[in-house]
């Protein structure tokens, strides 16, 4: 007779096999409404677990108002906010549509989304294009400058990028990540290497699209001028990797971690698509000149999908430069973050290795049992948004996933397995 331990071990081995066998390829950029046919008019996808307007934080509300004006659903921000309060928009998590979005994570029908196909399992995942730094919608920015950039992404960059990807046959992402880790990226708060590698891969196909040469120059300049361009690529890759890991009976592996600025939520393979939520925590970090912790909004965004696959805070040892940027301490301390994450994961990824740790693989497969037993919460590298709508990013820092999410998950998983204390 199989013991509970053997059942869990077998299920987790299968979960890890699926994670490591993934073959994510960036294949296209298409309108969100085409990528996700269920995404209807006046439906707004947001980061994190489900949330209604009443409980949304300031930057999330600002982004909702901005995206409603962008889509033409409201003539101005004030009326958009009133419409939202009156229930005229349908709010849904990105994760419920095979999608992810950074910070506020706004995804609506006319926005272009990047499409990553996991060629091993045939599933696809989606994410909007990174808008750059500073006052942008993902940090709650919503004025005309922000919306004009979104229109340019929709009308110029998105279609050209999609055409270039189709012409070039797509970009295989695992290899880019492997090289990025050797170039000092952890793929959450540092994407300098990967953004450069991405530009190298896409430049020639972009030139072959026949895009007007001034538009082409602007596209290349936009990608080259944004060190975080690759973040959204890493995120959608993470979603494409983790979705086939969902719903494995008996597995204690975390399949998603996500925040909406109010609640932090996790999903676990063995408990299906149920969210386990707890209040989000405040990042400890460094602030841009003129801003302090007083200005900060608590933790937010679907970008924790990169930690879920062993990158971001889990790969801090690969990115000593980012340790200083996010206020995590001296460069020499970066390795300790990765080693600590090794205490709550079941394996390492042999294809994604860290030179500074003698080529150890990134910690892979977060086990809810190990998190609760050790009391070590997943470490997340994150941007920090201003708490008021419309302002944007004010800093970057490190934050912990709330332990209560994992405790709830352990109790629910035990019940699923017919185990009680």
């Amino acid at each position, binding site marked *: 007779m199989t*013991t*509970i*331990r053997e059942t*869990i*071990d077998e299920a987790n081995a299968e979960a890890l096999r699926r994670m490591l066998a993934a073959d994510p390829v960036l294949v296209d950029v298409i309108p969100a409404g085409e990528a996700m046919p269920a995404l209807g008019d006046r439906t707004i996808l947001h980061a994190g677990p489900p949330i209604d307007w009443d409980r949304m934080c300031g930057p999330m509300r600002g982004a909702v108002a901005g995206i409603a004006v962008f889509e033409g659903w409201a003539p101005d921000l004030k009326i958009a906010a009133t419409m939202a309060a009156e229930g005229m928009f349908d709010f849904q998590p990105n994760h419920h549509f095979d999608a992810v979005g950074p910070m506020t994570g706004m995804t609506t029908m006319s926005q272009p989304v990047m499409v990553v196909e996991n060629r091993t399992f045939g599933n696809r995942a989606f994410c909007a294009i990174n808008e750059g730094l500073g006052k942008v919608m993902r940090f709650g920015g919503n004025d005309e400058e922000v919306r004009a950039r979104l229109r340019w992404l929709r009308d110029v960059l998105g279609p050209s990028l999609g055409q270039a990807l189709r012409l070039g046959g797509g970009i295989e992402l695992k290899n880019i990540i492997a090289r990025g880790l050797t170039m000092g990226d952890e793929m959450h708060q540092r994407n300098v290497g990967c953004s450069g590698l991405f530009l190298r891969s896409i430049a020639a196909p972009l030139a072959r699209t026949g895009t007007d040469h001034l538009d082409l120059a602007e596209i290349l300049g936009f990608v080259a001028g944004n060190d975080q361009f690759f973040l959204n690529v890493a995120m959608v890759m993470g979603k494409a990797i983790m979705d086939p890991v969902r719903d494995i009976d008996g597995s*204690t592996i975390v399949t998603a971690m996500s925040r909406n600025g109010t609640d932090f939520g996790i999903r676990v393979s063995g408990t299906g698509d149920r969210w386990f939520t707890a209040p989000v925590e405040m990042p400890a970090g460094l602030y841009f000149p003129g801003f302090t912790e007083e200005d900060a909004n608590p933790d937010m965004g679907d970008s924790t999908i990169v930690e879920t696959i062993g990158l971001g805070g889990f790969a801090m040892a690969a990115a000593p430069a980012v340790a200083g940027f996010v206020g995590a301490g001296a460069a020499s301390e970066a390795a300790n973050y990765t080693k600590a994450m090794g205490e709550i994961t079941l394996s390492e990824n042999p294809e994604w290795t860290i030179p500074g740790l003698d080529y150890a693989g990134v910690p892979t497969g977060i086990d809810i*049992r*190990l998190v*609760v*037993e*050790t*009391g070590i919460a997943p470490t997340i590298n994150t941007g920090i948004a201003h708490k008021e709508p419309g302002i944007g990013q004010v800093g970057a820092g490190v934050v912990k996933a709330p*332990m209560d999410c994992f*405790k709830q998950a*352990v*109790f629910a*998983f*035990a019940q699923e*397995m017919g*185990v*009680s*204390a």
Partner: protein
Amino acid sequence: MSDQAHNGLLGKQLKVINVGLDGFSKELADRDVPVVQVQWSPPAGGDPKLAELLSKLGL
């Protein structure tokens, strides 16, 4: 510990390994006593029900 051993211990330069609460190691470090901190906390944060559950779930 005998008085003799006790006296011998305090008569030498101390080398300390502190397990758990790091306040003790910080106090010693502030007094230039060599100390190695071992991070440790009770399983499941000291919650016996959770610890028992984890044990039944294969840990």
